[in-house]
């Protein structure tokens, strides 16, 4: 048994790999981390050294590469197969219970955490992103259209609501559908010229649209208020009863003691209802010809055309419906925050929602919900590390693409089954 020779050869190879990795790391980090530029009191830039940090990072990369080479002996890490069979099976059956469990949990959150205003707000934030994720899921997950500018519809919804509410004093329940229709209209307008573009081109064009919308919102001072946005957006009422500490208010009408938490709880259930509406519509549409056409288009557009499917209108429908839900979410956002500004509608938002959809598993409603919970919840939990959390987010995106490119929940539930066929 010659275990010694291979072991030392492995070690030698590992050392070589590690040295290479270390050198690369040194090259990458020597200037940007090893040296730091700071603005001195006189305004000029000064250099300070951070060689210790540099050394630690290079050492860490060296050690990591060494270990990896040693353990995996120079073959690419079979990340995809690292989940053992039993665990995969467990995950699959857990998924069946996860959806109803999560729903019940969501319904009970305001009850469980009534006194914790922070958690309630977090819940509202998570649900907003769940809704955005489900909305974008129609476009990206089901129809396979790479939309990098989804935030545009979110913005249209928010600003439409804000303007309708502040200028025309219409109630939330009228503004919401109007904002959705406007967003859908924009979806069709934007979609019509560009939806015949392929893959990456469509992605970058939608990104350009998103940015144009943001820039217009930023600069069109007279209508949108420019960088200051639109303030004093009316808060929602309980179907006409204001959440105020007064006669005729929600609290007094129901014989409760006034608490500001009432409005927060109402907002929570409101966004939950909107999100569930998005979910219901998506599930229903998936079982209808349009939904099947979306999924078929995602698989092979040319085959769809050969079957007589008008892929242009099919794509437009996906785009418009996705935009509509984005618009609804935007309305909710406007009324919840009370004011909006272009800052909230940058490309990072589009990237975040896209990441939620892709990482959750394209087309999977449950996956998107879990991804939103993990990412937004995670974001908030690491609030102190504000600076690092975007960096971690970026790494997460790259790592998950390499590990599980199809997302967390990669299996697809068919929308039709024949059941037990005759032999």
């Amino acid at each position: 048994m010659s275990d010694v020779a291979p072991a030392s050869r492995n070690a030698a190879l590992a050392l070589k790999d590690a040295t290479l990795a270390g050198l690369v790391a040194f090259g990458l980090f020597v200037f940007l981390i090893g040296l730091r530029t700071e603005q001195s009191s006189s305004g000029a830039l000064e250099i300070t050294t951070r060689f210790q940090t540099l050394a630690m990072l290079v050492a860490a990369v060296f050690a990591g590469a060494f270990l990896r080479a040693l353990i995996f002996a120079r073959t690419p890490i079979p990340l995809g197969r690292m989940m053992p069979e039993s665990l995969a099976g467990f995950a699959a059956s857990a998924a069946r219970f996860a959806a109803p469990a999560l729903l019940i949990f969501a319904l009970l959150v305001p009850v469980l955490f009534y006194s914790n205003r922070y958690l309630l707000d977090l819940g509202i934030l998570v649900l907003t992103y769940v809704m955005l994720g489900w909305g974008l899921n129609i476009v990206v997950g089901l129809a396979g259209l790479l939309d990098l500018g989804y935030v545009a519809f979110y913005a249209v919804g928010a600003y439409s609501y804000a303007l309708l509410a502040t200028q025309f004093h219409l109630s939330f329940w009228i503004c919401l559908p109007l904002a959705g229709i406007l967003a859908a209209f924009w979806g069709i307008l934007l979609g019509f010229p560009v939806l015949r573009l392929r893959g990456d081109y469509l992605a970058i064009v939608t990104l350009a649209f998103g940015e144009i919308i943001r820039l217009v919102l930023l600069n069109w001072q007279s209508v949108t208020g420019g960088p200051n946005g639109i303030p004093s957006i009316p808060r929602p009422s309980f179907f006409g009863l204001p959440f105020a500490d007064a006669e005729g208010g929600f609290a007094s009408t129901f014989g409760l003691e006034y608490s500001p938490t009432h409005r927060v709880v109402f907002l929570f259930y409101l966004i939950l209802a909107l999100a569930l509406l998005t979910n219901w519509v998506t599930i229903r549409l998936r079982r209808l010809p349009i939904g099947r056409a979306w999924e078929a288009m995602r698989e092979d557009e040319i085959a769809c055309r050969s079957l007589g499917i008008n892929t242009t209108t099919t794509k437009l429908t996906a785009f418009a419906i996705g935009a509509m839900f984005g618009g609804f979410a935007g309305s909710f956002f406007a009324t919840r925050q009370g004011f909006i500004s272009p800052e909230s509608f940058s490309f990072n938002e589009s990237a975040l929602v896209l990441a939620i959809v892709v990482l959750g598993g394209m087309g999977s409603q449950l996956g998107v919900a879990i991804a939103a919970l993990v990412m937004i919840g995670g974001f908030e939990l690491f609030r102190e590390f504000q600076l690092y959390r975007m960096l971690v987010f970026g790494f997460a995106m790259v790592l998950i693409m390499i590990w599980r490119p199809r997302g967390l929940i990669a299996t697809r539930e068919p929308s039709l089954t024949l059941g037990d066929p005759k032999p």
Partner: protein
Amino acid sequence: MTDTEPILRVEHLSMRFGGLVAVDDLSFTAKRADITALIGPNGAGKTTVFNCITGFYKPTAGLIRLEHPDGRAYLLERLLNFRVAKLARVARTFQNIRLFSGMTVLENLVVAQHNPLMAASGFTFAGLLGLKVYRDAEREAIERARYWLDRTALLRRADDAAGALAYGEQRRLEIARAMCTDPVLLCLDEPAAGLNARESGELNDLLQFIRREHATSILLIEHDMSVVMEISDHVVVLDYGIKIADGSPDAIRNDPKVIAAYLGVADDEVAMAEAEVGL
């Protein structure tokens, strides 16, 4: 057995890509309920002709006229894209099998019936509300899918992902899917490619069944001569984008120009080659 009426008339079809002439002044006629085969060496332009007929390419010149049994005629070179399939009811399969691999076999066949289902679903609204008219239409669609699954021996695979099927099964599925669109003309691009002798025989039976029971005209590109000779009524031979022969299978089999094209022999050496081969 064959109707003398033409269903497809291709006249002076030319397709040019920049400087490359893929199809040059091609004219031929396919008769109704016939099985017409388009053969020729690789690169002869056969798939290009298909793409022109089925609306994927816009021909540089020429006319493609399709006549339905009810008398309505369509100029296919003007119909682009999905309209050829939807209005003119021309269905096709692809050289490199294009199935919806992530969807089940059944779903593939139901997607093919998208247009009638969309109409029945009231453009989705009736469907959303679960109205009876849609549910009935869906049931019908599933029945039609079941019928074709039965004819192509894929019934027991109905709920499997299309991508998981064996190669021969995938080819059959593609044909079943095309038939679910209830076409007047079925264009098959190398349906026998990669099939063994038994599977080719089954394919022949299937195609003859389609022609006989559904009066669907078939246009097929094929390299497998056992399929071509066995079931075609009419053969058109292309080489370098030009038609070099057009007639019955027997006539084609013995045509020296065709033999030369496949063997790559220059025209004036054909007689010599024939002698060597023993014809």
